[in-house]
């Protein structure tokens, strides 16, 4: 659907700032008389700090203070005050709370100095004596102690239906398989950073790297016993986050603490190594038992997940909801247990749970399809879910069949032979793999404000974020189209806690939630504009209703006689110099709860595997997406391409390796933690199929930040099986596992 603004592939409105070096990120703000903080991290994984000697650091000329658990001021230290909008159930980590070490690289001191170099040097001089305790960081060893949490952060796993045990026992075709993926770190290229500026009268301004400024605002207010209105958090640009900025991180707390104590601005920027000292995608093991009849009809699913968490919070993700979303099956049982380790609590990372659960499920289904002798895409068609079985609700829309059709055609799937190792080119084995995916299309409560000034310029605002998703751009498009202005007359403001209330930017819900609020507030501006236009002397619109008029290109005109029109500027003259100002709070649309809203994907992958060396090249990917209405095809494509690249990383490269002798992640830099690079990325095609959705939200758009990744890693793993005949059930699929 193409409106006069939405549906158009317009350039990113903040694109120029991003290609000229003009976009400023958290660490790039400064303040007069600013001091620098450098964090000292624990060298042990678990124990107590017996002593911490800061005297050598303090003796340096220019070191202002070293904050530790011994001298930290007495603010509000109850753990509930440290909970934020993305906290799992449990007791959140409190920096410098006491002498207890709960995980390796835990922040245990902050050295504050006149320069960054001095603070860093001072940090080296802090001497710590530890009492070591034994620790649990070995996932495999601790899986026996896996438990069902009192409360899930994610949805509670659905209750079983049908008779899965009996159906499995009687199934003609069966597979049992265990899939796992390792811990992974988000690694945005921008470091986490905060600049805290303490102001006269006890007010605080903070520049922070965060996916929701109001989350930082609330966290600071609670943790420091301040009024929310005295805390102002600003974050206009975020240099990637992928979930790492959902929770306020410890550099924020430490910067605020130091600024408040020293009464001067303090900036704390983490190093790349320290970026591995907080949340990560949890290592997860999934066990499957699947049964089908000889025709390939799915008869039974058993899916049991074991996910890593910390000892102090119960982190969980939606790993086991996917059989009920993606397949039609009469007998299903699932479970999700946690394995608590002495690590920092895992943290949502792009498509948390989906990336994990769909990977395991889609590989296991591929195994079952092979065992039944059915083409993997055909198998999905035969077991297509017409409703969400977990919830017993119809989908708000689901054009996944169209994704199959268009994706298969573009890819040339019909030319595929079922047999593994059947395609070869020189010493390369060629494999074609398929997987499907889904991701929630949730709408949250959000507010927005619109101001249309008498010169015809519109400013719309909401305290959301743009972590690279395109929020600035698509919100401007929605506002411009609704009010009927050219895009250049519209400004969208975000990343400021004083703006109207926003949910966190995550979960692919920003377009759905904030976009609906923007649409609503702009509809109100429209109403006001028509009223003003009707006050113009001899107005041709005097008897018109909103349904009778078009507002576009700066004009309000009658639909059935476009020559009869009033310009927006003429209408605004009637307001006697006053701007039109509207505020709204937008709630999820009525009737939405009758439906299950999901975006869907179908991913087709070609790999070439060098038979002698085991090297894998992902030579072609076709990603077909049913994501509802596409507001901007250009930024939308970018989101899906990025998701595909993330899938390549998960399948082939990404792994944070735990050294169980030290209880520490070993490969904590960009040399040893491998993310996809240019050479990993070859031909990728993105298809958006037409999908109309009247139930999901007023825009009919589903959000695209996560649907692009979920089915990529399994499609690659399945393609590698097709190429080699070898089923690798452990990510990442590195060459040693193929030789």
């Amino acid at each position, binding site marked *: 659907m193409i409106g006069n603004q939405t549906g158009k592939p317009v350039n990113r409105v903040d694109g120029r700032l991003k290609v*000229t070096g003009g976009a400023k990120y958290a660490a790039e703000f400064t303040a007069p008389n600013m001091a620098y903080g450098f964090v000292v991290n624990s060298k042990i994984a678990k124990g107590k700090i017996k002593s911490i000697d800061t005297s050598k650091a303090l003796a340096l000329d220019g070191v202002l203070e070293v904050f530790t658990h011994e001298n930290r001021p007495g603010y509000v230290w109850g753990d509930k005050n440290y909970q934020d909008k993305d906290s799992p159930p449990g007791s959140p980590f409190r920096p410098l709370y006491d002498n207890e070490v709960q995980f390796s690289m835990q922040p245990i001191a902050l050295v504050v100095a006149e320069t960054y170099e001095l603070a860093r040097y001072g940090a080296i001089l802090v001497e710590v004596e530890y009492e070591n305790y034994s620790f649990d960081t070995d996932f495999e060893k601790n899986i026996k102690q896996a438990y069902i949490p009192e409360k899930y952060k994610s949805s509670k796993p659905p209750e079983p239906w049908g008779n899965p045990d009996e159906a499995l026992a009687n199934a003609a075709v069966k597979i049992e398989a265990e899939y796992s993926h390792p811990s992974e770190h988000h690694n945005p*290229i*921008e470091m986490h950073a905060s600049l805290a500026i303490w102001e006269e009268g006890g007010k605080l301004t903070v520049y922070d790297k965060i996916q929701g400024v109001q989350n930082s605002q609330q966290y600071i207010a609670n943790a420091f016993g301040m009024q929310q209105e005295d805390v102002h958090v600003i974050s206009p640009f*975020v240099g*990637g986050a992928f979930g790492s900025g959902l929770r306020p991180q410890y550099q924020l707390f430490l910067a605020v603490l130091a600024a408040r104590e020293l009464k001067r601005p303090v900036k704390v920027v983490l190093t790349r190594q320290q970026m591995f000292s907080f949340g990560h995608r949890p290592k997860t093991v999934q066990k499957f038992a699947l049964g089908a009849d000889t025709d390939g009809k799915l008869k039974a699913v058993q899916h049991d997940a074991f996910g890593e968490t910390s000892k102090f919070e119960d982190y969980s993700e939606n790993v086991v909801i996917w059989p009920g979303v993606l397949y039609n099956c009469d007998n299903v049982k699932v479970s999700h247990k946690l394995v608590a380790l002495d690590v920092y609590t895992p943290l949502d990372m792009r498509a948390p749970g989906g990336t994990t659960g769909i990977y395991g499920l889609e590989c296991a289904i591929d195994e079952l399809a092979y065992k039944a002798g059915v083409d993997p895409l055909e198998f999905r068609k035969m077991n297509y879910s017409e409703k969400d079985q977990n919830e017993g609700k119809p989908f708000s829309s689901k054009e996944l069949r169209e994704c199959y059709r268009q994706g298969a055609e573009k890819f040339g799937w019909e030319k595929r032979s079922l047999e593994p190792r059947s395609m070869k080119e020189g010493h390369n084995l060629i494999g074609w793999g398929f997987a499907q995916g889904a991701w929630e299309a949730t709408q949250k409560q959000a507010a927005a404000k619109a101001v249309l000034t008498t010169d015809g310029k519109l400013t719309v605002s909401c305290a959301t974020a743009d972590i690279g998703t395109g929020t600035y751009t698509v919100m401007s498009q929605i506002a411009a189209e609704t009010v009927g202005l050219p895009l250049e007359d519209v400004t969208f403001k975000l990343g400021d806690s004083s703006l109207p209330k926003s949910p966190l930017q995550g979960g692919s819900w920003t377009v759905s939630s904030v976009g609906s609020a923007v649409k609503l507030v702009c509809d109100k501006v429209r109403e006001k504009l028509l009223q003003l236009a009707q006050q113009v002397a001899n107005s041709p619109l005097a008897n018109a209703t909103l349904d009778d008029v078009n507002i576009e290109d700066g004009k309000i005109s009658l639909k059935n006689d476009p020559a009869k029109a009033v310009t927006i500027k003429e209408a605004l003259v009637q307001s006697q110099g006053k701007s039109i100002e509207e505020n709204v709070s937008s709630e999820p649309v009525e009737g939405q709860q009758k439906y299950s809203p999901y975006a869907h994907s179908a991913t087709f992958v070609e790999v070439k595997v060098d038979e002698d060396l085991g090297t894998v090249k992902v030579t072609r990917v076709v990603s077909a997406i049913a994501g509802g209405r596409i507001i901007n095809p250009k930024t939308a494509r970018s989101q899906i391409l990025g998701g595909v690249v993330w899938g390549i990383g998960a399948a082939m490269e990404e792994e944070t390796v735990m050294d169980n002798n030290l209880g520490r992640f070993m490969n904590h830099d960009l040399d040893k933690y491998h993310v996809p690079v240019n050479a990993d990325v070859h031909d990728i095609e993105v298809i958006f199929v037409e999908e109309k959705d009247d139930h999901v939200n007023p825009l009919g758009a589903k959000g695209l930040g996560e649907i692009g990744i979920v089915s990529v890693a399994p499609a690659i793993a399945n393609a590698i099986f097709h190429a080699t005949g070898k089923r690798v059930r452990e990510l990442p699929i590195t060459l040693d596992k193929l030789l």
Partner: protein
Amino acid sequence: MATYKLQINGRTYEADVEPDTPLLWVLRDNLGLVGTKFGCGIAQCGACTVHVNGNAMRSCVYPVSAVGNSKITTIEGLSADGDHPVQLAWDEVDVAQCGYCQAGQIMTASALLNRNPKPSAEEIDNAMHGNICRCGTYHRIREAVALAATKTK
């Protein structure tokens, strides 16, 4: 500490820093030229790429004492109005998502086109292979360099 006179973006800047200070830190912390980014500090990600006499260099491991009279260009000085063919192509193809690594990508790409105005697909890949982008913009980087090459005189 020593005083260095640096030729950056056609201007002379002065910085009073230790000789082994990486050029990146001088740019960002001393001179306020924050368009060039820190990403890893070990020359692995390319976010800190600047031009030294027209060649793409990693400023995070380039000591300020080695700069001498070399002409430094940062993203702020690549063009007067942000209208370098690479910048225009980047905008048109929607390369940047979060934008953080893009100064480094653009400086690498523009250095390539300086020495090789019509690169092949393989030459583009070889030139761009050392710049990491976590948003995964690689596909569009390739498209944009090829587009910029058609517009480079």
